């Protein structure tokens, strides 16, 4: 269980970024989590909420974009999602493919309220 550390790293980035928006408030952070990242999104969200509660970061939402494992067929170029049954290309049946995604653990966006509107999540 290392999701507490992951959630903490997200918050460190939010705090660092917050300095770029004096007077503004970061309301939401978007994070991409791949199924091969080794991170459980539910546990991460639970830790994130616990870390934010009672701090000056409130209200701060977490938006998780979960990504499945993706390959691209080396024979026909078709990108596809790999399931448990195997790595066969659904288009041409080839077994020769290359990994193109599914291990992401990335920050994708921040939603910033610049104070021009009423504060709120």
């Amino acid at each position, binding site marked *: *269980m*290392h999701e507490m*550390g*992951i959630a903490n*790293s*997200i918050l*460190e*980035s939010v705090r660092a*970024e917050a300095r770029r928006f004096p007077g503004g408030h970061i*309301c939401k952070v*978007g*994070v991409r989590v791949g*199924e*091969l*990242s*080794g*991170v459980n999104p539910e546990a991460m969200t639970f830790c994130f909420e616990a870390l934010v509660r009672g701090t000056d970061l409130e209200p701060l939402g977490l938006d998780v974009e979960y990504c499945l*494992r993706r390959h691209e067929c080396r024979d026909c170029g078709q990108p596809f999602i790999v399931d*448990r049954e*195997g*790595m066969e290309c659904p288009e041409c049946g080839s077994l020769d493919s290359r*990994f193109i995604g599914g*291990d992401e*653990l*990335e*920050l*994708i*966006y*921040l*939603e*910033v*309220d*610049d104070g021009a*509107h009423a504060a709120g999540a």
Partner: protein
Amino acid sequence: MERMPLERKVLNENGRIAAELRGRFAEHDVLCLNLISSPGSGKTSLLERTLESFAPGERVAVLTGDIQTENDARRLARFGFPVKQITTGGTCHLDARMIERALSDWRLEDIDLLLIENVGNLVCPSSYDLGEAAKIVVLSVTEGEDKPLKYPSIFFKSELLVLNKTDLLPYVPFDIDAAEKNARQVHGNMEIVRVSCVTREGLQEWLDWLRRKRAAPQAAAVSASTNP
């Protein structure tokens, strides 16, 4: 409300230190390997058999991670090579900063092979790059043959699978061919060796893999990504 794009790794800071370590390993031609498994799969036993195979004076060093105790470092120090225990005090994985700190009073000029034994855990260590040239996952036959399917992240990211404790195969309902098939389902071209640290069967294959890896110039590892 304004949405600002922010394309960056969550473990940015760990990644930065890992990249620095990888650069230093390349500069000093150090092969760094990160061994990962569940608790009790035999990482320390594999390292014992590995260290005892080396001639005195070989430039090998070991960092071994555990939540508590110096037991593993004591077991491994008997072979006369530099060994350091990293006790994480509760953390379930090693991170790049722990490696950086542990190496602070070692001279990389004196090391050709750095073996890192991660904390016993098949999940969390897979998220943390330690600057290694390759991850190695150890799976013992007293576990389930479906472990690669249950914990795909680490099997996907590891270059080599060491199937350990094969001496116990007659006593456990472990289908070793199914285990290999499952590993290759997650990681198509995964290299696999079958080893017993008790009978020593298969150990030569592991040592040969290690020798091949050491023969390749380490600078090549810099450009290689941590993923296959």
